[in-house]
């Protein structure tokens, strides 16, 4: 199989429009059937092993999980748990992005702020917010405020650092252009600095989204007992393993969906960027 990596794509490109469409269709098919087959094989083996009693008793079989998830998605409890997790996620993530972006802009444009902020960032960034989770929950309780503080404590750094890097990356020629054509301060921010930094910020935002979900689920599990993490925490204590694994799977799917959604948003917002251009010639 090695060495054939590029061959299909190359032959497809060599053909005309119809052949290219067919080639693309075939590639899409490969992207679908290969993982589908692998998944079927893995889940099949797991199911067989579970039926034969060869898996640990605490690990539910795929059929049990599917049944549980099939029933759950029809129940309002499941969706209120998802909703609670999403609400915490949105709140904490929004704070991280807004504050991170604003501070990053300040530090990127102003050397003094940069020098004051940098040591603080370098000091606190490597400390995961989970370290001070016990304190925050003791002091601020298990409400949404605690979750927001913890999420922001973990998720602000990628946005902040990426924003600074993005602002510093503004092309000097473009900066000259805005001066030569007497752009106002606001125009310069809106049309030069912000779009230049946008691809960097987007990367930071996607990393922050993932971190935010991790911190939200952790606080739910350890402290607040709400949301998907709360469901898992209860299931863990009561030994309902189907619920535990099923909800875990749902959290994983939620993570994938959030990341994909942000990826789509990024693609639309940065349609002009070299990596996303359509019809560039």
């Amino acid at each position, binding site marked *: 199989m090695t060495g054939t990596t590029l061959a299909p794509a190359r032959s497809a490109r060599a053909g005309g429009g119809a052949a290219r469409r067919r080639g693309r269709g075939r590639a899409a098919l490969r992207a679908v059937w290969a993982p589908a087959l692998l998944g079927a094989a893995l889940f099949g083996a797991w199911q067989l092993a579970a039926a034969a009693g060869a898996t640990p008793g605490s690990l539910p079989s795929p059929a049990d999980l599917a049944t549980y998830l099939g029933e759950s998605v029809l129940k309002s409890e499941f969706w209120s748990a998802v909703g609670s997790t999403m609400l915490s996620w949105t709140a904490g993530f929004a704070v991280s992005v807004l504050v991170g972006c604003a501070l990053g802009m300040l530090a990127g444009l102003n050397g003094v702020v940069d020098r004051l902020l940098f040591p603080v960032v370098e000091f606190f960034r490597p400390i995961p917010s989970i370290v001070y989770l016990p304190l925050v929950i003791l002091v601020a309780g298990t409400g949404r405020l605690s979750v927001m503080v913890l999420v922001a404590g973990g998720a602000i750094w990628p946005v902040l650092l990426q924003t600074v890097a993005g602002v510093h990356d503004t092309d000097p020629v473009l900066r000259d252009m805005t*001066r*030569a054509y*007497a752009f106002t301060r606001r125009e310069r921010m809106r049309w030069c600095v912000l779009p230049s930094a946008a691809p960097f910020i987007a990367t930071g935002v996607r990393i922050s989204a993932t971190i935010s979900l991790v911190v939200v689920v952790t606080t739910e599990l350890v402290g607040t007992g709400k949301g998907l993490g709360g469901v898992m925490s209860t299931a863990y204590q009561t030994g309902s393993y189907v619920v535990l694994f099923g909800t875990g799977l749902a959290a994983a799917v939620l993570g994938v969906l959030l990341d994909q959604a942000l990826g789509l948003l990024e693609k639309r917002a940065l349609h002009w960027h070299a990596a996303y251009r359509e019809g560039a010639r």
Partner: protein
Amino acid sequence: MLEVEGLGHVYRTASGEVEAVRQVDLTVAEGEIVTLVGPSGAGKTTLLRSLAGLLPYSRGEVRLGGDVVRSPHPDMALVFQDYTRSLMPWATVRQNVLLPIRKKVRSRAERDARVDAALAEVGLADAADRYPWQLSGGMQQRVALARGLAYRPKMLLFDEPFASVDAQTRADLEDLVLDVCAHLRMTALFVTHDIDEAAYLADRIVVVSHRPSTVRAVLDVDLPRPRDQVTTKSLPAFAELRSRIFPLLRAESAEATA
């Protein structure tokens, strides 16, 4: 229109002071096209950025229509060398041309009219809603020129604008600059390192030396207008002009490498 007296510029770097421009005097009269030609690395861009008010100069004075230029002057528009970097990829052609005059022209209708006129002037009326990166290099540089025109300056500054396009496109763009300047009676200062281009466009040629820049010679060009890529360049006077500029530049680079 433009008067430059005793201009000098010294960079301060970690390893000491570097003199980029020593002594430049030049004038550009109203309606005149002056080209500034010098070898590569002659500090031409530094010189031009000083004239445009983008770079504070260390000595001398730049005046535009009597005003001392210390920061970008509203009567001056600059066409940059690197069009891929001076056009905003996130903005359409129309937005790129419109943005500089968004705050300066109150009436929306007049703004749009100016943009349309500028785009028509450079032959890009159809490309207004496309993005710069969807256009060829030559077309992108036309957008940059249209942006300068829509600004309605009294004077255009060009910083080696056609250095990175192919020969045919370059010839077309040169003719476009001549047409536009004639049509709008625009004053222009055009920096280049290409002798043919300098001679073909100019009413007057200023030859500058290798860095630190000084003016080596000022040559009057009496080639007839309108000019034509074939007939003008085959005139004996054109050949004679080239042969006067060429040694000035070559002697210079020989000195520099010696």
